[in-house]
């Protein structure tokens, strides 16, 4: 690991002769020299940071779900930004209920944001760069806009085996943040299908992140739903291609 070498001091042991006053008895003072080892830290020459960059392309595979601007985050492998079965962070709740990604982008070691929503059939490529770290995990989150609190993305992809020029291809499934009940009502779905409320700090659903059960829609028997068959989705919801470029 490159960063192990960063700021590692050279240790130099110097032997110094220090005069010590030793009192042997009350009226007889003599001076002796005692060798003492002193550790002096000399800063190592600062290595030039090496950029490690990944190009990430996300393609929206759904029929009618806009994917909010993606939040790509590089983090340590013991620092997941979401986990199935655990309570969603406020940052994830904000993203999943409204598409606001500022909170998610503040997590991890570094992050990169999409420039805008990715519409069905479209894709966007973002580049994320970190210095000197080649064993980060990549997580991606983005809201499925015409839902209460569905998000898609990637959970902790281990990048340690990806050499420069290597590509990883995969898909993202739909998750439910568990923070807002899936009423699918016009008041609570923020996407273009409804224009309802986005983030609301009140938590009204199961309380834990899980796989999303899909939207029901008014066409399929949920009378309170503003959604139609045009907004139904199945897994996978996005395709993801990650290439290490440097």
């Amino acid at each position, binding site marked *: 690991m490159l960063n192990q070498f960063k700021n590692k001091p050279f240790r130099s042991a110097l032997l110094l002769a220090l005069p010590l006053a030793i009192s042997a008895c009350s009226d007889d003072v003599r001076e002796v020299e005692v060798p003492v080892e002193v550790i002096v830290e000399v800063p190592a020459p600062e290595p030039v940071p090496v950029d490690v960059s990944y190009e990430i392309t996300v393609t929206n595979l759904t029929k009618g779900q806009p994917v909010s601007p993606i939040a790509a985050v590089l983090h340590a492998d013991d620092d997941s930004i979401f986990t*199935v*079965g655990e309570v969603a962070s406020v940052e994830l709740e904000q993203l999943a209920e409204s598409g606001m990604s500022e909170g998610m982008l503040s997590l991890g070691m570094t992050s990169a944001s999409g420039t805008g929503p990715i519409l069905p059939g479209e894709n966007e490529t973002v580049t994320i760069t970190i210095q000197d770290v080649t064993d980060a995990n990549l997580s991606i989150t983005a809201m499925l806009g015409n839902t209460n609190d569905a998000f898609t993305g990637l959970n902790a992809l281990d990048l340690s085996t990806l050499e420069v020029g290597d590509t990883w291809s995969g898909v993202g*499934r*739909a998750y*439910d943040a*568990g923070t807002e*009940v*899936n*009423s*699918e009502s016009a008041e609570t779905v923020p996407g273009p299908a409804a224009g309802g409320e986005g983030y609301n700090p009140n938590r009204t659903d*199961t309380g*834990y*992140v*899980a*796989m*999303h*059960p*899909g939207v*029901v829609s008014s066409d*399929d*028997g*949920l*009378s*309170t739903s503003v959604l139609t068959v045009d907004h139904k989705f*199945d*897994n996978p919801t996005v395709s993801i291609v990650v290439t290490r470029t440097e």
Partner: protein
Amino acid sequence: MKTLQKFCAATALAVTALPTMAADVTVEIQNITQGLYFTPIAAVAHTPDTSLFEVGEMASAEIQEMAEGGSLAGITTVATAIGADMLAEPTAGPLAPTEKVAGTFMTTDGNSVLSVVAMILPSNDGFIGLDNWEIPTEVGTYTIYLNAYDAGTEANDELIGSGEPGMPGMPAPPFLTLGTGGSGVASTEANATVHIHPGNIGDDSLTDGASDVTNSIHRWLNPVAKVTVTVN
């Protein structure tokens, strides 16, 4: 079951006194759905020429019993008959949404593939399934995502009924919040072989409508379970 199989494995080892292909395997199963429950899970290591179920073929009576009512009695009998190693879920209760269960067993030489089954609640005859997954010989951790299958043995009427094989309707354990008074979604099963489950339909009424399950809670998209296998 686990103790018995461990005893068998030890016996085989003692008799042959040869290096064995037996593996020390930990299996963790997580229910990754938002609103479904699983009945006690059977993880079975067996020989590749045997199979608990096959997509496109009629389910065995033992799979039917598991998929319609959650009983592992038949599966246990079959596992013993084919010399399989079986890890039945150590807890008797259901596996609630996002909960995990894990166990470790020593597989016998030759039992090189893993199958996993458990009934999905609420459903008529839905089950999570892993069919003859080859257990890697290399030490490591492996992740598999499971789909929901339909045993093809019962019409998906989605009505509270019976968990007995061959009897219509779904078992209705107390931890499920189900409606009543549904008229029935389907009265026949058009595909009598094991197939990918089409999913629950449900409705948004607890007192009438076609189904006794709730459409905004009891539907799912695949995958429904995450299996983490660690070869120790």
